[in-house]
């Protein structure tokens, strides 16, 4: 086991982790931040997407030891957990979710995307979400939600 300082959602704490452990397991099992979901655990579905220094990464493919000295943001830290981000608001409003299991990953993919691409085309949104598998919605309402969030963030 290794003792590491992890900064998650703006708070730094010491955590004991296995050297082979992924940040997904660390945040779910050791920090009890269960909002990030484990769906495939092999980098195929995007459900465990979190942000590392502002960029989306797959939690299941990221060793915890690589997160030392980085700023990790999970779904619990979006909008400091206080207000809904535009992306979240529109996912709710347009029913861009059904069972909700892929949703935290969708939020963590779309939020940094809109920061980098404030005026995306619909095709760019589709491309950006292509690593996030959703089995319920058929994606249409997710894409709608991201499109509407982009518009709202512009105004």
């Amino acid at each position, binding site marked *: 086991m290794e003792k590491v300082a992890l900064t998650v959602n703006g708070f730094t704490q010491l955590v004991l982790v*296995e050297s082979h452990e992924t940040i997904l397991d660390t945040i779910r099992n050791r920090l*009890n*931040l*269960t*909002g*990030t*979901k*484990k*769906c*495939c*655990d*092999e980098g*195929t*579905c995007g*459900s465990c997407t979190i942000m590392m220094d502002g960029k989306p990464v797959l939690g299941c493919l990221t060793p915890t030891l690589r997160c030392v000295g980085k700023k990790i943001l*999970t*779904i*619990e830290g*979006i909008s400091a*957990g206080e207000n*809904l981000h535009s992306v*979240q608001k529109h*996912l*709710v*409003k*347009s*029913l861009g*979710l*059904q*069972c*909700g*299991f*892929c*949703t*935290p990953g969708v*939020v963590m993919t779309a939020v940094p995307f809109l920061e980098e691409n404030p005026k995306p085309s619909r095709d760019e*949104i*589709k*491309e950006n*979400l*292509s*690593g*996030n*598998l*959703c*089995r*319920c*919605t*058929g*994606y*249409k*309402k*997710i*894409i709608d939600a991201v499109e509407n969030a982009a518009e709202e963030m512009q105004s």
Partner: protein
Amino acid sequence: MSGAIGKPTPYIDAVQKVTGQAMYADDFKFPNMLYVRFLRSTESHAKIKSLNVTEVEASSGVVAVITGKDIPQPFGVLSISRDETAMAIEKVRYQGEIVAAVAAETIEAAEAAVKRFRVEYEPIKEFYTPEDSLKTCESHEQIHPHTKDHKNIHKTAELRFNEPEKELETAKHKQTGNFKFAGVTHGFTEPHSAVAMWNGDETLTVISATQVPHYLHKNLSKVLGLPLHKIQVKKPVLGGGFGGKSDPFPHEMIVSYLAMKTKRPVKCTFSREEVFITHHGRHPTEIAMSISCDDDGKLTALDTDIIIDGGAFGSFGVVTSYYNGVLLQGPYKLDKFGFRTRRTYTNKHQCGAMRGHGAVNPRYAVETLLDMMAHDMKMDPCDLREKNFLSEHSSTVGEFRITSNGIRDCIAAVRKKSDWDNRYGKLPFGRGLGVACGFFISGSALPILWNRYPQTVVHAKLDFDGRIVMFSGASEIGQGSDTMLVQIAAEELGIPMDFVQVEVADTKTTPVDLGSYSSRVTFMVGNAAKTAASNVRSEMAKAIAKEKDVSAESLIFKNGRIFTKDKSLDISWEEGVEMAMAGRGAFVESGFYISPKLGGKFKGAGAGLSPSYSFGAFISEVEVNPKTGETNVKKVWGAHDCGKALNPLAVEGQIEGSIHMGLGQVMSEEMRYNNGQQMNANFFDYRIPSSLDTPDMDVTIIESNDPEGPYGAKEAGEGPIHPVLPSIGNAVFDAVGIRMMELPITPDKVLKKLKETA
């Protein structure tokens, strides 16, 4: 409708879900909890000769090791095929079957211990295809001892009406086809997960990702020998089901048994590979089908012979066998109709119920044959279908009662929106349009386990705080049933939705609901919720009428107020609550739903009976690249008759989700096996459509206002998938002139067909 019903309504649990606060089964953690991992079979069909339990027990952190003989009681969702045990006893029947379970202090300790198992197997002849299983074998080779005639046939379902075979022999216009469908799986994102706890009062609590808490409750009681009143099953937020969480499962029995044995909380969560091999998805299917019609294009007969590959256990297979046939009785009128379905056991992962249960593959077959018929008779495929629709308030040859039926509006809508009449058959080579229709049950009229109780009961509680709490066993699985309960109570009582909350899917606190399967929840739970909430209103009206000396019938509940038409009385909801509760306190009103007596008297008459049926028509546009064989679905126009959209957002979501799942099966999804081992048990190789594969979707909701549905509603969760697949197959024909008789329609198959026809 003045209140919440019929308005696009975001889900009541949506904020929890977008913020990561929603608790799914694997998110629960309890003090002193143990973790379970499994030893799974590496053989497809073999005797277990020896297993070294003691060495594994000695492994660090291990608290308990159990094997098949510890939990020998067989179970299954259908009482007629309880052919499965929690772990293999004496022999294994598929690769991946659970042979033993280890409970340990950590997941890592459990995994390390599992690696110390040494098993000796003695192979038995394997049966990998239905063809193998239909042949006679030695009795010791049978997968299950109870199958007849030394064959591995689980079920033969057959019904015949008015000798269709005779009509087909002499028919002038006849189409015949042999179709082959790969098995597909649900692909829900949340892996199976269950936590069990043995409580201080000698009761068991199980939190499980299940669509059927009630059936799990009953099966746990049977398997564990624990009385029903000592078991509580709770469904937390569920990450998708589509039928894949509608059986009681071995891992649920195992964690429960281990919790009782160790007196500690016990959890297990599947890996993605375990989710794939647990399967219970759509059966690989072979269909030989013939249809005939007269010179006017009126259908005269349909006859079909179907073989479905069930895998190692029964699951819903008996129902699947019937649904493959009986759900061909609509949406077209047929007087001469027959089918036979044989379900075989094989040494592979078991198949069961999946969205559109049993009817998806035969729907593809019949809609393809209709397209072929229209082509040969030089008729428009939409016109041919329109000549044959069942009318509303009619009945089918197998005595299904048809009530509302919006099929004509459905086809008219997609025909117009896709500009079918100007574009079908006229698009350039490589581009095509295809049409298909569908038909599905809106809840099964018969419960799975026969009893004298209603199929669902809902309690509505009113207390001093003015809040209504709806208690229902209904299982929210993402389809929006919790939101529906709130909408209905708000509608009936004329209050804002935020006055209503739900307590759901907990077999200790909520009245029985049979579960989220067979598209039954809106129709049945909706009706029960409406009665419960309107009973609260009647009770309140009675008390207010007495106190204020007005007639109870004259009271209107609307916009959070209770008033008479002339407003001589006009009080707030809170004032009304206070009057209603004076001298009696909080009260609960009840509503229930029980299907009317339906159907014929012949054997098999109960299969497919429903208080109502949904209808739909879809048109798809595809682009086929004749050089690469790639098919691209550009746009899907879907119209579905759901009776009445209680929540149009949710109905659209169900239709769009059905397009996605249908698209996956028709284009890319396939359970691939080699000698009983799944070759693609992950999302890299088992390809479900991504956002990039998503076509444009144009969804039309048709409301035929069912006479018995709540506010006229019927199902929308499964019916819309049926027309998706054949509309795409038929569009491929319009694009490049080839008939795709095998799914999925992969580029290699397209190129092969193109070569054959060139």
